[in-house]
C-alpha cells in the first residue's frame, strides 16, 4: 500500500482570506519575517496495489475532476515515499 498526496491550493490570483488571517495574526503572536501565507487542502490517499503511471494518471483525473475545482484551484499529485515521510515528521 502506498500513499499518494494531492495538494490543492487556490489559484494565485484568487484572494485567500484564510491565509491572510493567519498572516495578520503572526505579528500578534510575535512572528516576524513571513511575507505571505496561503492555506490550502491536503488529501492523503491510501492506494491499494502498485502506484504505477496508470494509477497516478487516474489519481490525476480524480484530482482534476473532483478533489479540486480547477476553475478556482490548482493541484499537485505526488507519491509520498518512505524517506520523505521520515524527514517530514516532526
Amino acid at each position, binding site marked *: 500500500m502506498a500513499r499518494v498526496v494531492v495538494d490543492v491550493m*487556490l489559484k494565485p490570483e484568487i*484572494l485567500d482570506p484564510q491565509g491572510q488571517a493567519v498572516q495578520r495574526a503572526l505579528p500578534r503572536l510575535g512572528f516576524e519575517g513571513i511575507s505571505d501565507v496561503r492555506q490550502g487542502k491536503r488529501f492523503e490517499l491510501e492506494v491499494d496495489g502498485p502506484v504505477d503511471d496508470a494509477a497516478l494518471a487516474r489519481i490525476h483525473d480524480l484530482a482534476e475532476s473532483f478533489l479540486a475545482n480547477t*476553475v478556482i484551484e490548482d493541484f499537485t499529485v505526488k507519491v509520498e515515499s518512505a524517506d520523505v515521510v521520515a524527514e517530514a515528521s516532526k
Partner: protein
Amino acid sequence: MTARIGVVTFPGSLDDRDTQRAIRVAGAEPVALWHKDKDLKQVDAVVLCGGFSYGDYLRAGAIARFSPVMDTVIDQAKAGLPVLGICNGFQILTEAHLLPGGMLGNDHLHFICRDQKLRVENAGTAWTSDYTAGQEIHIPLKNMDGRYVADRRTLDELEAEGRVAFRYVDFNPNGSLNDIAGITNAAGNVVGLMPHPEHAVEPLIGTGRTDGLPFFTSILKKLVNA
C-alpha cells in the same frame, strides 16, 4: 392546471421542505425528487435547494454534483428545463458547470445570516419575470461559502451579456466579485443565487417580508402560459 416544480433532496439538504412550502404558497405543485433517482418525475422545473449536501465537506456542492439526479438535471437544463439553484443549489450548479465561476468561503471566514438587500439586475429570466429590472428587494442570506469568483474574462462576459441577475446592495456580505449575488446562464433558464427567496414568502416568518415570492410566481406564470 398548475405547474409541477421538483425540489431535489440530497443528503444534507436543509431547505427542501421550506422550498416546497414556498412553491405551494405561490400556487404551484411541489414534487419531491430524490438524489439517487435519475427520474425527474416529469416536472416542469427544478429547484436545487439550500443546505449542506454531503456536509459540504470537500467543497460546497462538489459531491452532490455527481449524484444520479444531477446527470438528468444537467442534460435537461441544457435542453431548456428551468432550474433554480438557491445557496447550496447555486454552488452545485457552478460545480456542475451549468453556471460559470465558483463559490468560495466568505472573505470574513464566518457563516453569515442576515436580511440582505439585493438589486434585481435581470428580470428576463425564467425565475425573475415578476420583478422589474433595477428593483431592490430584501432576502435572507445565510451561508458559509458565498463568495462568487470567476476569472476576469468570465466576469466581463457575464456583465456584458446582462447575466448578473442579482447584485448585493449597500453591503457585500461575502466578498463576491462585482457584488454578484446571483447569475443566469445565457438562455435564462438556469439561475443561481446565494440568498434564500424561499424564506421570504410569508409575512410573519423570518424577516417578515415576502420579497422572495416572485421567484415562484414568475416560474409558475411562465410554465402555465407556455
